[in-house]
């Protein structure tokens, strides 16, 4: 019996799909069987991020409607034997899926895999409700921007009301230079405001653009700063005790500097 995570944010464009893909690779590299489910019906993208768009024959809608069996819709990753994608339908509408159908499908995936990661659509409407219904825990993605944090807070409220298990935070696209200049919210402030435990901080990284272009998640090579950060998060998810690296060192320097002046 595996564990189901929903990757969600409220706001669009903060890196839900990129995070889902990279954590999937990270978990698979740690030896786990993983399925990544795209719940963004009508606007799927997890397939292109993983570079698997040419292999899609069936999708989750076909499984839910009984057109094919689950096994036929699962796409095995090119690089990792234990990593699978369950794509979303591109022709259907989010309203075509019922929460009951989703619940049943997620339960089936949970039986077969160690980890099920669900890539949630943006927004808080039906698509969101369907994406969270079978999840045990939630990963909230936010960037250090006021709009994204506000939407994250809204989503956290909705998840808490739906009796979601643990809800953890990932702060994405952190720019240390801006933080040190006092022009970007520090992750500690975000943690403070949202009142969640943080599971990782991902630096803003141009490698993500290249990785998206190629359809190869940064965790495959795991040499870029974002790649390392995502590997660390995957490690923490499987229960390893991985310290938050260099980003915090800079903070302590900044606070020393601040203390020096406020004396």
């Amino acid at each position: 019996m595996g564990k189901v995570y929903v990757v969600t944010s409220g706001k669009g464009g903060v890196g839900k799909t990129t995070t889902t893909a990279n954590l999937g690779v990270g978990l698979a590299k740690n030896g786990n069987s993983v399925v990544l489910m795209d719940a963004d019906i009508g606007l799927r993208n997890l397939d292109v991020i993983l570079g698997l768009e040419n292999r899609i024959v069936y999708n989750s809608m076909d499984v839910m409607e009984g057109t094919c069996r689950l096994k036929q819709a699962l796409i095995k990753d090119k690089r990792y034997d234990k990593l699978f994608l369950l794509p979303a339908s591109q022709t259907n509408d989010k309203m075509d899926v019922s929460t009951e159908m989703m619940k049943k499908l997620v339960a089936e995936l949970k039986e077969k895999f160690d980890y099920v990661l669900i890539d949630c659509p943006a927004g808080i409407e039906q698509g969101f409700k369907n994406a969270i219904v079978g999840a045990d825990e939630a990963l909230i993605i936010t960037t250090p921007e006021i709009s994204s944090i506000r939407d994250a807070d809204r989503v956290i409220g909705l998840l808490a009301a739906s009796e979601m298990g643990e809800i953890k935070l990932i702060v994405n696209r952190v720019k240390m230079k801006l933080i040190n200049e006092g022009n970007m919210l520090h992750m500690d402030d975000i943690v403070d405001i949202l009142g969640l435990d943080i599971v990782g901080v991902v630096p803003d990284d141009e490698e993500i653009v290249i990785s998206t272009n190629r359809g190869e998640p940064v965790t495959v090579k795991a040499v870029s700063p974002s790649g390392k950060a995502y590997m660390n998060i995957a490690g923490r998810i499987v229960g390893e005790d991985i310290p938050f690296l260099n980003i915090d060192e800079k903070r302590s320097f900044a606070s020393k500097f601040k203390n020096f002046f406020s004396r």
Partner: protein
Amino acid sequence: MFEKLFGRKKSSAVAKDRLKLVLIHDRRLISNTVLNEMKDELIKVISKYIKIEQEEINIQFDVETENRNRGALIVNVPVKDILKK
């Protein structure tokens, strides 16, 4: 500290303040319309037993900052005169 040094507040501090204010509003689970409806009904019920200052009733809903699932409904009802049944 920054304000004194540079004469202007850093934008991250501005963001934090603005965010806090916005969230206080967002986290309120009950809208003003519902609160007012509730207030009207409460007045009716309480007035059956106690003479109250209807204009002075104050009703508000506060969400705790540490635990967003908890809050307090605070109703302040000034009593004019306790009626004999």
